[in-house]
């Protein structure tokens, strides 16, 4: 019997959606190993922990400390590795967010154990079998993890949370983890209130076809109407039209939104790699031979400067209806 640790993530005291996905994966693995899911939540006191049993947590260990309200890499890693080391642990599951990408290798190094990052699936088949896109999504590994414990980070939005009916008993845990080597002293608010392109369920991506930076207003309008985020091709980021945080593709972010609009994007191979797992792709481009149409579910061949305002208007009508 070996337990699986699910490292939950909160920001500003609110649990992130990826935490439910982490719990869902942990539940499946714990059932395979014949153990329990021990969720771990680190943050300021007062974070809502009700209902985590509903996603598969047998126990929820809460480290509540005002000093740990924001992600503090050294202390969070020490808490998680301590938790894994204290009990018979088969795996530690983390979301592959900005936090998880930093945290997972720290835990794995502390435990001197294997690390599989940014997986789109992790299931039990006599051990953990993980599926991991590589080369920016141009190929996919199937991996078998041959020793325990191990650390696995899962790609946000790739796994549908499943309901469960475990107890989710909350226990306070200790945060006596020593002094940090590096310390987060401040979280600066983003320049805009925009949603992160990797987290949004709708992404409106723009490319060179927009002709100049100011024209991204057309995309912001549609993203605004849909509660989505604006994304950008490498070409327009390199041209300085948009911040690199918005870049979608192999050297930017790999996104899996429900709906991706490729506007004035021809579809370079490294960009296509980044949107391959989007559920629905819409392309708007004046060139009928643009490679983007080969992967798009729906396309309009036309002038984006005419199409976009009309599209935003039509969608607003539906939203308001």
């Amino acid at each position, binding site marked *: 019997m070996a337990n699986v640790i699910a490292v939950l993530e909160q920001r500003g005291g609110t649990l992130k959606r990826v935490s439910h996905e982490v719990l869902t994966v942990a539940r499946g693995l714990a059932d395979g190993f014949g153990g329990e899911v021990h969720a771990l939540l680190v943050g300021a006191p007062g974070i809502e922990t009700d209902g985590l049993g509903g996603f598969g947590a047998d126990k929820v260990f809460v480290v509540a400390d005002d000093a740990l309200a924001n992600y503090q890499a050294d202390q969070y890693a020490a808490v998680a590795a301590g938790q894994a080391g204290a009990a018979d642990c088969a795996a530690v599951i983390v979301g592959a967010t900005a936090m998880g990408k930093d945290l997972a290798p720290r835990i794995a190094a502390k435990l001197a154990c294997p690390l599989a990052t940014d997986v789109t699936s992790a299931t039990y088949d006599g051990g953990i079998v993980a599926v991991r896109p590589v080369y920016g999504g141009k190929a996919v590994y199937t991996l078998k*993890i041959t020793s325990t414990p191990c650390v696995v980070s899962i790609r946000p939005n790739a796994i549908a949370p499943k309901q469960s009916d475990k107890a989710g008993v909350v226990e306070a845990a200790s945060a006596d983890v020593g002094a940090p080597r590096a310390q*987060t002293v401040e979280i*600066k608010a983003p320049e805009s209130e925009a949603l992160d392109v990797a987290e949004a369920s709708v992404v409106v991506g723009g490319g060179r076809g927009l002709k100049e930076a100011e024209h991204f207003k057309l995309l912001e309008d549609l993203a605004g109407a849909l509660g989505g985020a604006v994304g950008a091709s490498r070409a327009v980021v390199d041209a300085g039209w948009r911040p690199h945080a918005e870049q979608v593709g192999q*050297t930017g972010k790999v996104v899996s939104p429900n709906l991706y609009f490729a506007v004035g994007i021809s579809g370079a191979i490294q960009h296509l790699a980044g949107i391959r797992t989007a559920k629905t792709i819409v392309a708007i481009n004046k060139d009928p031979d643009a490679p983007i149409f080969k992967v798009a579910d729906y*396309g309009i061949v036309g002038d984006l400067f005419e199409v976009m305002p009309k599209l935003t208007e039509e*969608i607003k009508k539906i939203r308001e209806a």
Partner: protein
Amino acid sequence: MKIAVCVKRVPDSEARIKIGADAKSIDESGVKFVLNPYDEYAVEEALKLKEAAGSGEVIAISVGSDSSLETIRTALAMGADGGVLLKSDAMPIDPLPVAQALAAELKDGAYDLIVFGKVAIDDYSHGVGVMVAELLGLPCVSAIAALEIVEGKGKAEREVEGGVEVVEFSLPAVLTAEKGLNDPRYPALRGIMMAKKKPLEVKDADLGAGGIEVVGLAYPPERQAGRIVGEGVDAVPALVDALRNEAKVL
């Protein structure tokens, strides 16, 4: 200031990936390999810091086969002073053995800073740099988009979902570079010529296999081309209808 930059040889992001005959690795024939793009930011930052300090040394280190010598030479051509190849023909998919080999090399190097790219665009692990820091017990900030170092103290910014974390640390430390940290210089012809004369040491690295086995490498499911709903602005209602009633995403 003595700085190590850890670099990796990867297929160019524009390269088409072909799965090899073993169905576990890629077919490298005809593929253009480059210095990992994120490592370019790491090399540039190291060079800038050395230049600002007025003295020091930048050493480029890679784990890989002999082919990685070319990758190290790219860093030397950009301006690094020396290179070390930790030679291994096999590269485990588990980042731990790679991190252990690098940590063993870096441990006694008296480096003030060790810089990595935040991720290699081949296996996308985001793992080795941060692991090296943990193995060496050093402060670490990953995926940094801004950096300031004054008198042995550092301040770095990393972009996270919905904000920017400002992290303080003291040297020696490990950093991993995000796009936007700087504008990497192109190796000039003079740099390329000089790179040939710079010291480049090759050591055998005895990498363990790690705890992850590759079962298979495959192409992702192909997306089927959909349909063109129409031309120009007149096609908008048909598109909205399809998104709403067919794809059910509105």
